[in-house]
């Protein structure tokens, strides 16, 4: 910490507790408290029970969790593959130094903009767009699980693209050149040198995509078929019909599942970082 005096340190901690804890930690604590509550009429919940959890981890709720996990997994894999591919292509088009034409640099920048678009466009709009686009021949995906995964992939690819693109810029071109000078074809260089060196960023991107997809609601609402209900939709439905405590329990399950996956991914990251 950059604050050295004892007083300054206390002041900084106090500020942290007053400003940041209520903002970031308290809402989550409230959810956890509510998920155990039998009723909540005063300032604090009362009548603690584990009933909501037994409901939240059974039957349709359990199925919703599985649906969410599968959707997030599918969307992350697609997003990572597409995002990485596009980021590599954009980096190659933009090039370094001489030998890249103005046209190819323009194409690279266009790719950048294109993949940024889903970040700028509200997800409701993306959901509607996907719904309209795939509800008529030749591609009818309306009412399938595929359309949900597709919409999620579309939404999170932008983040995968951005984080991989940033990592590619930081990657020292000397590695690629050393590999090429040793007689390695570009595909071999990509597979054996570039992707392994990008692995920490790729896993970070995967984690980000997974977390975003797990929490996605607005586009999902427009698209989900009855047999493919992700957990956020169920949480919304529960609170909508007044079952706040059940919703809270479902939310804690969602949060825990996401955190567990992120934790697993971060373990891979630690192993994958070399320096």
């Amino acid at each position, binding site marked *: 910490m950059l604050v050295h005096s004892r007083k300054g340190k206390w002041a900084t901690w106090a500020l942290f507790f007053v400003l940041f804890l209520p903002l970031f930690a308290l809402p989550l604590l409230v959810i956890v408290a509510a998920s155990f509550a039998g009723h909540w009429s005063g300032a604090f919940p009362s009548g603690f029970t584990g009933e909501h959890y037994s409901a939240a981890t059974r039957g349709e709720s359990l199925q919703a969790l599985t649906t969410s996990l599968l959707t997030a997994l599918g969307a992350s894999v697609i997003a990572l593959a597409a995002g990485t591919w596009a980021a590599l292509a954009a980096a190659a088009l933009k090039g370094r130094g001489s030998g890249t034409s103005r046209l190819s640099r323009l194409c690279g920048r266009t790719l950048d903009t294109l993949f940024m678009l889903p970040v700028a466009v509200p997800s409701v709009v993306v959901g509607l767009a996907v719904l309209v686009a795939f509800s008529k021949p030749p591609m009818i995906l309306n009412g399938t699980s595929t359309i949900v995964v597709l919409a999620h992939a579309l939404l999170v690819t932008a983040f995968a693209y951005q984080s991989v693109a940033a990592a590619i810029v930081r990657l020292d071109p000397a590695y690629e050149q050393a590999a090429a000078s*040793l*007689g390695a074809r*570009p595909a071999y260089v990509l597979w054996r040198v570039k992707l392994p*060196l990008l692995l920490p960023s790729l896993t970070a991107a995967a984690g980000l995509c997974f977390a975003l997809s797990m929490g996605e609601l607005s586009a999902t609402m427009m698209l989900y078929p009855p047999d493919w209900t992700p957990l956020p939709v169920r949480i919304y439905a529960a609170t909508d019909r007044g079952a706040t405590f059940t919703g809270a329990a479902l939310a804690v399950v969602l949060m825990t599942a996401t955190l567990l996956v992120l934790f697993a991914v971060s373990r891979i990251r630690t192993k994958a970082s070399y320096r």
Partner: protein
Amino acid sequence: MSGGIRFDSVSVAYGKQVVLDSLDLTVEQGEVMALLGPSGSGKTTALRAVAGFVRPASGRVFIGDRDVTALPPHRRGIGMVVQQYALFPHMRVEDNVAFGLKAQKAARAEIPGRVADALEMTGMASYAKRYPRELSGGQQQRVAIARALAIRPGVLLLDEPLSALDAQLRSGMLAELARLHRELPDVSILYVTHDQVEALTLADRIAVMDKARLQDCGTPQELYRRPRNEFTASFVGNANLLPVSVGVGSVSLGGAELKVDTGEVAPGVTATLCVRPHLVGLGPGPNSLSGTVTEVQWRGATHRVFADVGGHSVKADLRELREPPALGSDVTLHFAPEDAVLLAAGVTDG
């Protein structure tokens, strides 16, 4: 394997900025050619043109008899070592060295032997299982050289390979490189450096570069004893460069007549006289210069005396003096006529 590198009026430009201006240079098979110059002189660009990382705007590059100008880097058959080594951090030393062999699909049974040979040659055999991050800078450099040699290239490109090492390691690695070259007499080496000591020590010939152009090329002895222009004189070794007016068989420096070989320089013009500091003696002699001492530096084995001679600074490296001259005192320096080189003015400006 036919070696050698030939630049045939190679020019490279980034946008409108010319960074290499029609370079003509031939490196014979088995020769060590140093490209020596300050940063921005175009020496690294020349090396990168051989490696295939920059595309010449005009001219051709040949490796052996092959025109490689349009070939991608991985089809050129070169070994390359760069300043920052660029060892693959996710591979063990042995996998780094085996990388080129695997990429070129060498016979699988042959790879371990060739990796071991390359590591043996650079003295890194006992580090095969380590990761690059577990090695010191000098060790990483050896691995980088082993990796480049494992593919048995006809041409080895070294881009400032020692500049990231400290001075002591550097002189050790210089000796190593010289030994490696004796063991691999057929490999042509293009050695880019800004360090004249490295170039003088290692190279069979030195190509001096400045401002995107080749300024001079010759053996280290030729360049040191008979530089062709002021830039070479000052960049290869130390030099006193004195403006003189040329007479017949002599030159005049601020009125003082100095006997030197005027060669082909026409009488009556202004030229530059180059005298190496260690060839300047204290006291009167055949060509005497009288001046005032402005600075005396003790350097252990030698004293470097700076004197003001008619407005020009002259330095002399003298074997350690018992009684060095005092600052501000009058001093007489001399040099032998055969130790001076007359440089016609204007040849440096291309």
